[in-house]
């Protein structure tokens, strides 16, 4: 396996992705990511040196809204699914600042 994923990398990606993996999940993840990257590395066989990255397949551009208020108070519906709410606000564990 060309790509060896270290514990540090998995730890780091876990912080980015907000995922906490169990011991065996980590081992599995290291294997899976390694083999996926090996597989993905075949893209390096392609010469893409003067190819523009393509994010949208079609040249659609300039899609705008006019600056007009269209939404009213929809708080009930918006907070209806909240795991925890308090007078119309979403409740989260205290943030430090």
């Amino acid at each position: 396996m060309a790509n060896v994923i270290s514990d540090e990398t998995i730890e780091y990606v876990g912080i980015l992705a907000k995922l906490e993996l169990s011991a065996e999940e980590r081992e599995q993840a290291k294997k899976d990511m390694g083999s996926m990257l090996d597989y993905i590395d075949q893209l390096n066989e392609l010469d893409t040196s003067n190819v523009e990255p393509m994010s949208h397949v079609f040249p659609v551009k300039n899609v705008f809204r006019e600056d007009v208020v269209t939404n009213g108070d929809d708080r009930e519906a918006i907070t209806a699914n909240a795991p925890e709410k308090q007078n119309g606000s979403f409740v989260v564990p205290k943030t430090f600042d």
Partner: protein
Amino acid sequence: MELMKLTAVETGKKIKAGEISVEDAVNAAFEQIETVEKDVNAYVTVLEKACVLEKAKEIQKKIDSGELTGPLAGVPVAIKDNMCTEGILTTCSSKILSNFKPAYTSEAVLNLEKAGAVIIGKTNMDEFAMGSTTETSAYGATKNPWNFEHVPGGSSGGSCAAVAAEECSCALGSDTGGSIRQPSSFCGVTGLKPTYGTVSRYGLIAYGSSLDQIGPVAKDVTDCAVILETIASYDQKDSTSVKREEYDFTSALKEDVKGLKIGIPKGYFGDGLDEDVRKAVLEAAKVLEKKGAVLEEFDLGLVDYAIPAYYVIASAEASSNLARFDGVKYGFRTEEFRGLHNMYKKTRSEGFGAEVKRRIMLGSFVLSSGYFDAYYLKALRTKALIKKEFDRAFETYDLILGPAAPTTAPKLGESLSDPIKMYLGDIYTISVNLAGLPGISIPCGTDKKGLPIGLQLIGNCFEEKTMIQAAYTFEQSRSYEGPKMVQR
């Protein structure tokens, strides 16, 4: 139940003609669900029968008063569980959305409702549409109606199985890398993935935003054309929605392929292609040839690079799209936690399944500093090259023909062990999403085990009609055959 053997359009005709009522149609669907659902598990949520019958009455009134005249008025339909439906549980087959009832209905579903279709349930899928077997669902795997030991394919396995098992007249699926066409082929139904931007994504819970498209799953091409005509629309709420000159797809339902140039990519018939599938697909090609189409083998480049490019792009977008599931605004939140970040991590780790976590991890990695250019930009450049390959092909050919999948439906539990092997199953479908093209899968026979095989036709951008016409023409050579389900 005889009624459920009808196609959506046939059902609609009978309702309009007054031969049956909307309630009859709905009752028939529920009857079938009661008989087979325990074996198939096509649905995450079947709506309260009483409520659906209420709806049926309303629609019957509108039909009688001439307010509703469309071909889908009164027809019972199923919706893949990644499309928001106001007040109706929408889970993406994930634990993290186990209790989520959206505040609004997705545009495509609204269009169906306006046409008078009756929603009877939300279908099972691979969690967040990540998978090719519908085994990654948090609500149990869906079984293939043709053989309960086999998977229905995925990620729209629930929609395809529900149609095959006659638990609805037709359904909506979504296709990011083949998620409509591959399960359609495994379940012996017809599924169409439109050109990117044809059906609004508003309300479709995103997996890979630049690849996702909603499309129809049905018993035949006519239904697909009718459904597409109903759900396709230019939507100002979706910036990537494309304003098309016309949305009249049913006018392409003509038996005529004379002079139509069909290209057959050699690369689609190489190693890994099941022998029975090869035969069935090439025979299907012959059928079209007999009817006047001009077949030609050609070299479509970069076939092998589509999958790696896809997994980089889709995983990267998914890692960002799924960041919003954090236990703050909706859905599941872990029981015990110490502080904010611990709450995030525990909620997401408990709420997401293994395959979803795998792709979020991969996606976060390929976007992380130091790897962005090597992986993400490289994949976008590859995507550009693949698009160019198809553009070149469509200078010569009106359509591209091949299998929808290299094999028929594998046995339950066979695929997940080796992700890459599973990913390879999407080799014929994925590039179509990368290039934004339309594709359709039509049943074209069964293998030795009696499992369905799907023929895939790929059209040029915005050329659904050519594709539909050819598919319709092929379809005339064979009559629809549902699975002979052995009831336990």
